[in-house]
């Protein structure tokens, strides 16, 4: 390992000589918004069932990396492979279908549909995947129960607390049993006790269902729920900082 600081947003894809191919990987990602380079050669990999924290200062490109990995944003250069498929080679329709079937998302806020009840929100991805209403809602109810918020089933997102809403969002992300959960600052809007509990429930559910988790966070206590961390630093710098 190079003793000098790697400053490019290279996510050290650990597991040297690991067992088999990663579930999801990225190589040499570049993304520029106008004149702002958000990613400048980012690498990343995650294995099935692994929980990886993506850390780094604000503006370093963490969310952009997550969006590229999830196929929400197309990188200007570089590749993302999911189970051997190159995401950019897929049609938009196939990419969306893949996102729905294999990926789950938890964001900081604003992800629940305000017009639907919490139960309907959790059932929504299942419904979109073709599950019948009754079955979808039964499974949604189980997930709300598991996230310790069975009592908010009939409430709308505007009528529940931030912590309760976030648990509904976690239930919604995990109910379809995704292979990868993308969580971007999932506890950002919660106090420490609620954040801790949300992380415990999220990681326990991911472990039980075998889902991998890409966990973007700048909170170290949240990152401590991961198996390993990757640091995105100075995502806009294309040249490494001068070696000291």
């Amino acid at each position, binding site marked *: 390992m190079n*003793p*000098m*600081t790697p400053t490019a947003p290279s996510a050290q894809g650990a597991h040297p000589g690991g067992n088999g191919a990663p579930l999801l990987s990225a190589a040499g990602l570049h993304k520029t918004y106008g004149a702002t380079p958000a990613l400048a050669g980012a690498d990343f990999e995650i294995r099935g069932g692994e929980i990886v924290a993506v850390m780094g*200062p604000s503006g370093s490109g963490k969310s952009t990396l997550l969006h590229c990995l999830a196929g929400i944003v197309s990188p200007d250069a570089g590749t993302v492979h999911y189970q051997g498929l190159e995401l950019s080679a897929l049609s938009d329709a196939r990419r969306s279908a893949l996102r729905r079937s294999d990926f789950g998302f938890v964001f900081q806020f604003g992800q629940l549909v305000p017009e639907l009840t919490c139960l309907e929100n959790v059932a929504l991805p299942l419904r979109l995947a073709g599950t019948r209403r009754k079955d979808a809602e039964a499974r949604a109810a189980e997930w709300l129960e598991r996230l310790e918020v069975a009592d908010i089933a009939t409430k709308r997102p505007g009528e529940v607390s931030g912590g309760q809403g976030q648990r509904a969002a976690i239930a919604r992300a995990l109910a379809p049993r995704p292979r990868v959960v993308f969580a971007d600052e999932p506890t950002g809007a919660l106090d420490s006790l609620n954040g801790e509990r949300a992380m*415990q429930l999220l990681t*326990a559910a991911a472990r039980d269902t075998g889902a991998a988790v890409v966990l973007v966070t700048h909170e*170290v*206590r949240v*990152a*401590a*729920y*991961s*198996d390993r*961390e990757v*640091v995105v630093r100075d995502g806009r710098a294309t040249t490494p*900082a001068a*070696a*000291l």
Partner: protein
Amino acid sequence: MTIGHTLLGLLESGPRHGYDLKRAFDERFGHDRPLHYGQVYATMARLLKNGMVEVEGIEAGEGPDRKRYAITDAGITDVEQWLAQPEKPEPYLQSALYTKVVVALLTGRSAQHILDTQRSEHLRLMRELTRRKAGGDLSDQLICDHALFHLEADMRWLELTAARIDQLAEELTR
């Protein structure tokens, strides 16, 4: 002295034998470091000498464990004063780490590398504590949380220092 006060506090609920005291202490506070019998008896001897406890009864048989200790009024007052006294806030300057960073900068080595290594070492311990917390009862959780919040504070320092390392290098070589 914390062990003495803690043992005194445990005696407030009623007289106990030395062995009993050790067990009660280990159960609640001795997760990492159970007390030695020697420590218990030495502490009790001191408390006895200072009038904080008295021997309430000695059972027939061998060994120092036969003594049953009871707290005295002076002992109760002592516990009260101990509880009322705030702990000294330890600023815990990162002196070793700070020194390493400065020496690295002065000798043309990578200070970032030192900070990075320390960060992942901190995070490794934080993971361990987080796992331990998940498997533990409330008292385990509270003890682990205390350690976690302290480590988190160190991490903030590491982060800030990493962000200002160039500035520090400049000041050192001015």
